[in-house]
């Protein structure tokens, strides 16, 4: 029998359709793999009973010739998505044992509407604040990839580190993730997986623990571009409960896989050529461009002049929104409460103990930049810069560019603990290539494209026009076909 945990989502779907195996067998294989891989700390909650029950129901549907597009396929869920009756923590102590009495729109589409099977909840940086999955209250996630000849544990990136690690290690066929500044694409690049952040408004944010409302978007992490397309279709869609969700038909993204990219114009932004960028990243980028050119695309150099301001503007807008979004964690209605002789002390102790250092830091920065006398200089200015960043992209697309190719990250995965405790900016720079798409609300995909000299995967990023995820999928598959698949050796 085939190794059920090494199948792609598409292969598993087809195998279920052919009745080569059952959904329950698929679920059991993954639950067993999860158990063996606990050292990776990818899951913060395994839900084997729920998974088997869902798989049995999926098998019944198959027997009756029924079932949605994801029927019986086991997935992992980032712990930022509310799952009804199943503990949801955002990997923060402050949510304690919170069991939402509701299900997020995205996961209800995946599981209730389209028939997928939930394996458990995946680790992430606390409240999605981080780029290495080291801020989780459940401890860091370990990257299934290691440097050649080394057993140093590496980070999987963040904030969707659990999702990326689980997908790379075969602990689920695909996973939900969210991306506020690069939290889908950066961990995908660090783990040799595919990460797709759709256009802002494409997926409902209802029921996803909020970090920065104007930047947060849900999307899939998968092992192939086709799998990303399959999951994207089930995650996307208009939701009247989210004012910022867009009322627009969801295309059959999978149909974009294999579509010719001949004649497409691909922009290479000169501002992404950073001083001191490692040669291997530079080489990877050129290689990617060559592959696309070979597939018939036209490459043009473009300029996105405000690129360097995206990260500083992000570190005003995101903490500002977060400082307000996280005000609800006050120990009154849910979550942990610390003692205090009066209400103010109770608040201050609850939030000091409940939030980790990075979350506290960002709440404080956000509080400061919104405070009286500083709003115009910081927040308002950052939102104006954001308009300029968006306009850079619009000018590019208006000039006929179909998508923009960039490196996904400035480096490969680094060691756990390597960047902790120093200047926070060093960690923030991980998102330098990904954050622009969030600031402009644009779709972006990270596709594995090669390895560094130590054998670690590296990714390329494609940024598209608003709601043109399909072009990213077509282009991403070209890179995937050229670069091949990336699978870590099992050492755990």
């Amino acid at each position, binding site marked *: 029998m085939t190794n059920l945990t090494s199948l792609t989502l598409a292969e598993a779907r087809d195998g279920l359709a052919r009745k080569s195996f059952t959904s329950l067998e698929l679920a059991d294989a993954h639950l067993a793999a999860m158990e063996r891989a606990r050292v990776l700390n990818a899951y913060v909650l395994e839900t084997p009973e729920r998974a088997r029950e869902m798989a049995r129901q999926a098998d019944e549907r198959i027997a009756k010739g029924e079932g949605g597009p994801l029927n019986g396929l086991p997935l992992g869920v980032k712990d930022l998505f509310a799952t009804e009756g199943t503990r949801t923590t955002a990997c923060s102590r402050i949510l304690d044992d919170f*069991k939402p*009495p509701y299900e997020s729109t995205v996961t209800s589409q995946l599981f209730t509407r389209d028939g997928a099977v939930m394996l458990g909840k995946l680790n992430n940086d606390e409240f999605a604040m981080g780029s290495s999955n080291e801020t989780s209250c459940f401890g860091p996630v370990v990257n299934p990839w290691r440097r050649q000849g080394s057993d140093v544990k590496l980070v999987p990136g963040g904030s969707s580190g659990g999702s990326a690690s689980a997908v790379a290690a075969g602990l689920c066929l695909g996973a939900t993730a969210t991306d506020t500044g690069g939290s889908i694409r950066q961990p995908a690049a660090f783990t040799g997986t595919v990460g797709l952040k759709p*256009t*802002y*408004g494409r997926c409902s944010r209802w029921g996803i623990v909020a970090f920065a409302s*104007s930047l947060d978007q849900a999307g899939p992490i998968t092992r192939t571009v086709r799998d990303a397309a399959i999951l994207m279709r089930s995650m996307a869609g208009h939701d*009247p409960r989210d*004012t*910022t969700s*867009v*009322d627009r038909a969801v295309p059959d993204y999978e149909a974009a896989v294999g579509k010719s990219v001949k004649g497409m114009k691909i922009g290479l932004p000169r501002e992404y050529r950073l001083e001191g960028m490692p040669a291997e990243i530079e080489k990877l980028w050129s290689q990617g461009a060559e592959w696309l050119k070979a597939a018939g695309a036209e490459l043009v150099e473009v300029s996105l002049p405000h690129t360097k*301001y995206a990260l*500083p503007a992000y*570190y*005003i807008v995101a903490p500002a929104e977060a400082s307000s979004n996280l*005000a609800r964690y*006050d*120990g*009154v*209605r*849910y979550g*942990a*409460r610390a003692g*205090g002789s*009066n*209400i*103010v002390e*109770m*608040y*201050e102790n609850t*939030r*000091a103990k409940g*939030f980790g250092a990075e979350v*506290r*830091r960002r*709440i*404080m*920065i956000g*509080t*400061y930049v919104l*405070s009286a006398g*500083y709003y115009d*200089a*910081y927040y*308002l*200015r*950052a*939102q*104006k*810069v*954001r*308009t*300029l960043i*968006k306009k850079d992209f619009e000018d590019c697309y208006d000039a006929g560019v179909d998508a923009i190719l960039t490196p996904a990250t400035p480096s490969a995965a680094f060691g756990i603990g390597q960047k902790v405790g120093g*200047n*926070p*900016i060093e960690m923030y720079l991980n998102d330098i290539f990904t954050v622009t798409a969030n*600031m402009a*609300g644009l779709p972006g995909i990270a596709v594995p494209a090669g390895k560094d000299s130590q054998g670690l995967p590296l990714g390329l990023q494609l940024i598209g026009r*608003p709601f043109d995820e399909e072009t990213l999928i077509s282009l991403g598959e070209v890179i995937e076909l050229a670069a091949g698949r990336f699978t870590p050796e099992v050492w755990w």
Partner: protein
Amino acid sequence: MSVDAATVRRIAHLARIAVDDAEVPHLQGELNAILAFVEQLQEVNVDGVEPMTSVTPMAMKMRPDAVNDGEIADKIVANAPVTHDHFFLVPKVVE
């Protein structure tokens, strides 16, 4: 711009996060590093630029005035640390 220790304490209180005196210098350093990093925005010419209000331009939809939610008090208080008779309880508030 940079923050002094008093500002760190004021901001922490505004954000309702207890801060030990011992933590203040460290926090102050981190906050100032971030503020120094974002300082480069001051060099951008933003004259006449509209601040972004909605990254995906669209009109706000309005909901009909229908009562279709609520009457779930059990669920509302189910996760609360301290309740009594479907009220949330908190340390006494002085007005």
